[in-house]
């Protein structure tokens, strides 16, 4: 269990065309969400290599979110379908490695779904708070 007052660090990869817009909409619509996420904007969710996810975990992220446009809505025709293929391997591998499934999420969020984005962040933060710090977190990183 985590110590009192501990806030998880969550890295959210957001695609420029949908989920980053979604995060924006969440702010404009004033949907409350915890300040636990660090958003990294990428041009397409297909850009997110498993390498980036590993690096986030090894640098001390407690959870990583991979978000992008809904299937069929990709700005680059099928970038998010490629994300899905990679994600399935990534998910299996991290589970086999012993990382709790709640630490890695894939979600499709469009630019208008501000509330969905805020709820998603709320849910994940609550779950990760229960789990405590990630076992891959390097020593000395809070």
């Amino acid at each position, binding site marked *: 269990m985590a110590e009192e007052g501990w806030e998880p660090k969550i890295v959210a990869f957001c695609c420029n065309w949908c989920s980053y817009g979604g995060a924006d909409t969440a702010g404009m619509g004033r949907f409350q969400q915890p300040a636990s996420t660090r958003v990294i904007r990428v041009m397409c969710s297909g850009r997110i290599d*498993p390498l980036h996810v590993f690096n986030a975990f090894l640098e001390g992220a407690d959870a990583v979110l991979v978000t992008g446009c809904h299937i069929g809505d990709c700005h680059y025709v099928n970038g998010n379908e490629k994300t899905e293929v990679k994600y399935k391997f990534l998910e299996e*591998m991290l589970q086999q490695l*012993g990382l709790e499934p709640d630490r890695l999420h894939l979600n499709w969020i469009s630019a208008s779904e501000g509330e969905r984005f805020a709820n998603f962040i709320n849910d994940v933060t609550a779950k990760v708070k229960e789990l405590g710090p990630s076992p891959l977190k390097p020593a000395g990183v809070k």
Partner: protein
Amino acid sequence: MVNVGDMLVGYATNEDVRKRGASGGLVTAVLAAALEKGLVENVVVMKHINEFEAVPIITDDVDEVLASTGSLHSVPVNLAKYAMGRKVAMPAKPCDAQAVIEQAKRGMIDLDNTYVVGLNCGGSMHPVTTKKMLVEMYDIDPEDVVGEEIEKGKLIFKTKNGEEMAIAIDELEEAGFGRRESCRYCTLKIPVNADLACGNWGVIGDKAGSATFCQVMNDKGVKLLDNAIEAGRIEVEPASDKAIAIRAKVNDVMVNLGNTLEKEIFPEIPDEERMQYYMEPMADCIDCGACKEVCPVCACGEDSKCTMFHSLVDNYKMSMYHMVRLLHLSDSCIACGQCSDVCPSDIPITLLQSSFAIPSQRKREYTPGMNVDDVPPFFEVILK
């Protein structure tokens, strides 16, 4: 003329090759004929140094090919990478053939230029373990060994002064010796993915020990055999039904054993202990990169994702290098065991890698290295 799918029994016409070969010298003769008749420019063979050491060589000398005849069980080398960029014929264990096909899928080997003569394989042994086993179990000085053989589940060593000593492989494996770990749970014993599938299983009667059973798998196999028959290097005849049945039976026994051992070798790990289970051995890593260097299915080249983005100082724990490799090989690992063999820190990498790769491959009903037309699951989305 032979046809695809033929089951044949054959042997080398050259008496010397036939006698020295493990089972009739057919494979040696086929390779020599391919070189002689210009079917290929080079042949990859293992140059015999002693019973525990052999080096792969790429040769265009027929005599060198003929000299390489005879099998070695304690020199596990995967030959796939030697076939790159050449017009070659090569002998291959099932895992060599798998690696050749995986490399072909990744555009590194041109299958039209590569002739693969598969050999049945019940498993190979690590030379260091074998030497230790000779001293501890057989009470023989490794220097005195002149030959070895596997017969009816027993491992037989012949010494200089003509003695033969046999111990059951099960017994050896219980004592921690015997075959390499990845060979124990391997279930591809007959190289049906090669061009020819050769071996001594199913050679019965007066031919036992002096002929090779050979199954023709594809057109390249037909070419190889026709070429060798034309050159007068081999003689073949159709195998009897009994021989075919015996070969299938031996294979079934070996595959069942592999399946049973797999359950014993892979431990059930509770979810909360997994991270510890994987991180502990990985912490011994010294970042020498040997496991990537020898990996026969790795086609990334020298600078790749696993090596470029990780820091040496991360090696005391799970590092980026291992995480990338565990993921990257989960659809292509053939469990050839080379990474474990070369690891200077004795990390059981093959075992760790397999516990990621096997479930992932089974889930997708995909076996790497069987058919060049099977698309690796990682390449599932291709731009139309």
